């Protein structure tokens, strides 16, 4: 390849990273967190689903029958049984749905939802209203907060989704340009010279993180771009091309609704027995929910949604007769649309979130996600180093150092803010409807405080050292506060069936100890004579 072309790719790579580096760090770091959003952090955040939750399906069936009588036949078209502690539900929810056609021809879904305690199954409260109102009424927690922040930076649809989608594209483009400019990619697979100079440390770390995690970074970038842009751009575009702009028709084609052939012959559904039998036959999968269509008719269908089967798709649905339990068909989310497109669409979400193989795969994805975040930071540091202490750039050294302080403040601030969410989750005592708002207040306030500190402090090395210590102390403190507030002390949770709570506490403890250790090891000032030592810094393709 021509040297000039390589240099153009280098400039593209460099500026893409410089402009989006901090945002990429934010999305990648929160992504590493969000991998555990559902259900590990969900369980940690909600005391009610820590430990064993009720899987007494016959008791659940009797509750469904009791409520079915109360709501009347108008609400029997679609009955949802949402099981607690498996994915995102913190209580047993039994919802009865009625679809009404409005004057303008559009459809509205009215719901009556009975919320039961996840362990005792006692009725706690009831909701009545539209589907949208029900979605808006749920109490948020730190798990939801982080997952949503990762998805749209709390900017909502469409701007947040477009932004994260574009960041995915940026990451993908950076991976491609990085490979093109890194001509000695295979020869430098093992180059890591941590003791020569700061710049070499940044450069080698960036290359090693990039090259060994190449497939992961590319996959995350591509799937992230797809997930961010699918609702905002891709669905409308596909509907415009193939369905004359009718988005509803497109969704129905790819995600057809279950419609039993109602015969009018009455028959008693047996959801309790069917779920018990299904659980016995499939002990390794998580049962998320069961949807019964055509309640009371002999043709009623029950669709059981599961996580953790043998396919790559995140979830798999098993349709059975709601009366006899006879298996009818099974499919993944887009599996009903029998095509390569369906397989690809099914793979997007699990490949992005790593939720296709239990906790082990989540740990791998999370660590690789931290690598993506560090890739963004090291890229930023190289960009700043080459300008503040090297021959590149037109601005003053002071300006580049200000950018450096901003980078340190925003990146370390995010880590502190994410840890502060654990404390907010445990200590906030506010109305359920206001919980997410106050989580946001704690999160963004702590972030802004650290950012201001980072900007104000002149010595970034000392700032990083101190903030690492703060992060370490905050992380170590979470299990202590958890034990004081909820009574779930770490040694106890290990032995009383609350293994996920124990694992989260233990992980925080280990991360905290690591941060404290790192803080003690990190230098408090820039090493003397480190500006350009040990490396030629001419910014051409040969030194990239």
């Amino acid at each position, binding site marked *: 390849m021509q040297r000039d072309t390589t240099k153009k790719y280098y400039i593209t790579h460099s500026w893409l990273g410089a402009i989006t580096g901090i945002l990429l760090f934010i999305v990648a770091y929160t992504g590493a967190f969000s991998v555990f959003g559902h259900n590990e952090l969900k369980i940690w955040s909600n005391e009610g689903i820590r430990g064993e939750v009720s899987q007494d399906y016959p008791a659940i069936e009797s509750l469904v029958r009791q409520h079915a009588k109360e709501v009347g036949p108008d609400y029997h078209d679609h009955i949802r049984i949402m099981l607690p502690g498996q994915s995102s539900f913190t209580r047993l929810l039994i919802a009865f749905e009625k679809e009404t056609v409005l004057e303008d021809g559009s459809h509205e879904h009215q719901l009556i939802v009975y919320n039961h305690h996840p362990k005792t199954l006692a009725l706690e409260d009831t909701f009545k209203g539209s589907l949208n109102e029900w979605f808006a009424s749920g109490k948020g927690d730190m798990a939801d907060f982080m997952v949503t922040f990762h998805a749209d930076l709390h900017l909502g649809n469409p701007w947040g989704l477009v932004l994260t989608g574009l960041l995915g594209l940026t990451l993908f483009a950076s991976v491609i340009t990085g490979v093109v400019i890194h001509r000695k990619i295979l020869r430098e697979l093992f180059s890591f010279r*941590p003791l020569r100079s700061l710049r070499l440390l940044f450069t080698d770390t960036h290359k090693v993180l990039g090259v060994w995690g190449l497939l992961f970074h590319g996959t995350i970038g591509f799937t992230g771009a797809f997930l961010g842009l699918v609702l905002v751009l891709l669905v409308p575009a596909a509907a415009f091309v193939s369905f004359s702009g009718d988005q509803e028709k497109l969704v129905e084609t790819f995600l057809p609704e279950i419609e039993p052939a109602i015969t009018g012959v009455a028959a008693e559904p047996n959801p309790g027995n069917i779920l018990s039998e299904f659980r016995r036959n499939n002990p390794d999968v998580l049962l998320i929910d069961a949807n019964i269509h055509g309640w009371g008719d002999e043709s009623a269908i029950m669709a059981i949604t599961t996580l953790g089967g043998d396919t790559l798709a995140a979830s798999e649905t098993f349709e059975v007769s709601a009366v006899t339990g006879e298996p009818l068909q099974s499919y993944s989310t887009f599996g009903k649309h029998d095509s390569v497109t369906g397989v690809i669409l099914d793979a997007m979400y699990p490949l992005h979130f790593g939720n296709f193989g239990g906790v082990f795969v989540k740990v791998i994805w999370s660590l690789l996600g931290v690598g993506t975040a560090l890739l963004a930071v090291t890229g930023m540091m190289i960009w700043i180093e080459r300008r503040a202490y090297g021959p590149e750039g037109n601005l003053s050294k002071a300006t580049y150092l200000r950018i450096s302080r901003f980078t340190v403040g925003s990146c370390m601030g995010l880590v502190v803010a994410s840890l502060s969410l654990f404390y907010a989750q445990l200590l906030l005592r506010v109305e359920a409807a206001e919980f997410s708002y106050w989580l946001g207040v704690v999160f963004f306030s702590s972030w802004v405080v650290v950012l201001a500190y980072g900007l104000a402090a002149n010595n970034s090395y000392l700032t990083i050292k101190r903030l690492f210590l703060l992060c370490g102390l905050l992380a170590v403190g979470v299990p202590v506060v958890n034990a004081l507030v909820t009574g779930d002390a770490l040694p106890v949770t290990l032995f009383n069936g609350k293994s996920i709570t124990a694992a989260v506490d233990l992980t925080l403890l280990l991360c905290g100890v690591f941060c404290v250790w790192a803080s003690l090891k990190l230098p408090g000032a820039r090493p003397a004579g480190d500006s350009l030592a040990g490396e030629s810094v001419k910014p051409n393709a040969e030194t990239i």
Partner: protein
Amino acid sequence: MMDTLLVVVALVSNVATILLWRLQRESQGIIRTLIVVAALLSFIVSCVALSVPYAWTRAPFIALGLLGLSGWLVVFAYPLIVKPTESR
């Protein structure tokens, strides 16, 4: 228990793949070819081991993820363990 054992085998095979790949760079001729083949076989062993608990539809993705992590582990740990000054 069996599944855990297979995951450990996969982890070890992945690290072995990286170390073998590193070793082949310092070798020549038929020895180098043999080491490359051994490294590829080691990666295949990792995939096969993971295919038992995770099925073939998932195992290659997990193995590739593990390969990335093993690469980081070997490259970052090597200079700290083997040579205190510099590694290349």
